[in-house]
């Protein structure tokens, strides 16, 4: 189901899926794990380019115990960051490498023009996972 904005604005032609609306509004993984023990961070993108994210992962043994994000971007991007954090929790570092941006794009019904923004998320995830690798 797609939800069209009712506002009379230049984005009124953009349709957001019900999942985008839900994830954007809840965003229960928003936040920072700065200073938290066993937490690592991956960062990618730039505000000036329209999408920027800092992904925080707190590991216990080899598994993500908590995932959090700070992000600047459109509703699709913020929803994708929320979805990524939700997916990442309780996964091993090896499993994190299987994250597939195109599946998220399909899940959120992202317009093709916006899909490249998911690569920013992928970069942040790889960066965070890489930091874990270096720490081990």
């Amino acid at each position, binding site marked *: 189901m797609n939800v069209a904005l009712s506002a009379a604005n230049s984005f009124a032609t*953009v349709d957001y899926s019900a999942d985008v609306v839900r994830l954007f509004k809840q965003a229960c993984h928003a936040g920072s794990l700065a200073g938290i023990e066993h937490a690592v961070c991956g960062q990618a993108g730039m505000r000036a380019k329209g999408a920027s994210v800092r992904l925080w992962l707190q590991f216990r043994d080899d598994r993500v115990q908590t995932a959090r994000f700070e992000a600047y971007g459109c509703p699709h991007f913020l929803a994708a960051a929320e979805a990524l954090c939700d997916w990442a929790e309780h996964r091993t570092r090896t499993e994190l490498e299987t994250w597939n941006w195109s599946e998220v794009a399909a899940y959120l019904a992202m317009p093709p023009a916006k899909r490249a923004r998911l690569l920013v998320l992928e970069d942040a995830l790889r960066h965070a996972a890489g930091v874990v690798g270096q720490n081990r």
Partner: protein
Amino acid sequence: MNIYLDYAASTPLDPRVAARMIECLTSAELQGNPASVTHAFGRRARELIEQARVQVAQAIGATPASIVWTSGATESDNLALFGAAQFHADRGKHIISARTEHKAVLEPLKKLEKQGFKVTYLKPDTDGIVQPEQLQAAITDQTVLVSLMHVNNETGVIQDIAAMGQLCRTRNVLFHVDAAQSAGRLPIDVNAMHIDLLSLTAHKIYGPKGIGALYVRRQPTLGLEPMIVGGGHEFGLRAGTLATHQIVGFGTALQLAIAECETDNARVSTLRERLWQGLQAVGGVELNGHITQRVPGILNVAFQGVEGESLMFALHELAVSAGSACATGSDEASYVLRALGRSDQLAQSSLRFSLGRFTTEADIDAALEIVAREVPRLRALTGQDLP
């Protein structure tokens, strides 16, 4: 809950205007073609149209014969620009306008450039004001036409039209003004302001959509090349059967707007100030455009630290505009705000709140409650030190 704060895009129809229009649509006596003056049905419709022409003319200090009905300000702008440029091309092929004009002016100008005209686009100050000295410096012997808007549709900033008009008249250059946002809100006197062509529309002043007018100076008569031909209507400048109910609605709406201008402006100013104070309390906001030289109903605000599309989505209960509502389907930063020197990022994070006759204190308070809830939430999502 949906709160309408988009009066600069279009105003709701005033019930008093609607009543007059319904009368026109339902009365058997008014079903004739206003051009069919050979019978009573046509003559009665024509009579009402001429009454409306007087109402519109009086509102801008013009004579009724100088009012040409159009479908709205966009058509008026097109007729003024193409009509004047083409008719007077032998006098020169230089036109002056501003970067912050509406697309209804900029796009015809682009077409005229392709036809061999040279256009100078004046750059406003960071407050959105174009200085008369800039216009003076830009006028050359080849300048045939100047086109400037009275009030900017995005920022609400008012230009010094009288000073610009004086300059144009002194240099024998035609002067076109888009008054879509100012008519009925600010005093307009086409003679005192030396305006040769003036674009008007009904749906910004609580009238119906789809009707507007172009004032064309008659003394001395200004030549204009028509764009729509086929019947010789409207003094040969705009062919087509006139829509009696629309025109009557326009005349009534403009008459009401003039009569209630002072009270409307005072009330809307108070509401706008309440809104601005409330937005400032949220923090991290900047006003776009001149702080005082503006119409009461428009407040354009940049929200720092939030992304534009997410801001609009978070505030979807508010019917507000990002950039121009006429430029639909684009998430590009507003060219008007970019012309004022705003960064792409800040221009994209700007919203236009526009208020009007039916806005209430409760609307403003409810809007502020939503902004105060959503903007900090978005900022918290972002984290302030994110690059």
